[in-house]
């Protein structure tokens, strides 16, 4: 009988989430920002699964399915926006879309 502490799973989810947050804050390229958001969503899913392992319920996997559906939707719309941004500005820098500044 192997024992994996659910606490370690939550800690690893926290580490992955904060790596994703670091990526969102530092990178300027919009594709990398989207990838870092995916990392954060995946880490949240891992936290749910680790918690469900402790309480032995199926709710964690159910929440993970919902997170997956939401991530798929967000990626579809986000990548359409990326293509529009590239079409308009010929660059993937997030600071070129500054028409509303000032």
């Amino acid at each position: 009988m192997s024992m994996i502490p659910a606490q370690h799973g939550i800690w690893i989810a926290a580490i992955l989430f904060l790596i994703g947050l670091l990526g969102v804050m530092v990178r300027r390229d919009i594709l990398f920002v989207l990838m870092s958001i995916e990392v954060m969503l995946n880490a949240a899913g891992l936290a749910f699964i680790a918690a469900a392992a402790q309480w032995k319920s199926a709710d964690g996997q159910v929440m993970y399915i919902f997170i997956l559906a939401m991530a798929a939707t967000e990626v579809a719309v986000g990548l359409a926006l990326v293509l529009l941004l590239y079409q308009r500005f010929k660059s993937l820098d997030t600071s070129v879309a500054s028409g509303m500044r000032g």
Partner: protein
Amino acid sequence: MSTAFYVAAVVAVLATIRAITHVNAVRALLYLIVSFFGVAVMFYLLGAPFAAALEVITYAGAIMVLFVFVMMMLNLGPTALRQERGWLAPSMWVGPGILCGVLLGELIYAARGAQTVPFTTIEPAEVAMALFGPYVLGVELASVLLLAGLVGAYHLGYRKRVAEVREKSGAIQEVA
């Protein structure tokens, strides 16, 4: 089994760090796919084989492939790589790194006290019973969300029939 869990965890964390620090977008994406595989192994070892299969099939197999398609369409060249290297100066990582380090310390301190439980697998049948039982409203809402995403992505990707030349002359015409 425990060592496999920690090995997969190390692989996932290292691949994720490499994914956010790489200059080349396609290589960063490949590292991200490796990270998702590591997390899928962790899911399986935490007793969630259905979630592990879903992660590999849907997350790494569909969503990341969508990313790859878009990157291939954008066809970024060497100029983009030089631009990325200019943006990734080490001084840029210090501030956010400190903030994230503080948050990590807080999260690890706050998430103490979980128990160590024996390994038990939650079968897909249980997940299905939960999805068709208490969570059926959530399933319907998720399908509505997917429909909204579909309509939104279609509308955003629709190419106007009148070219951008007309826009420059001030007459913006949209063929709906």
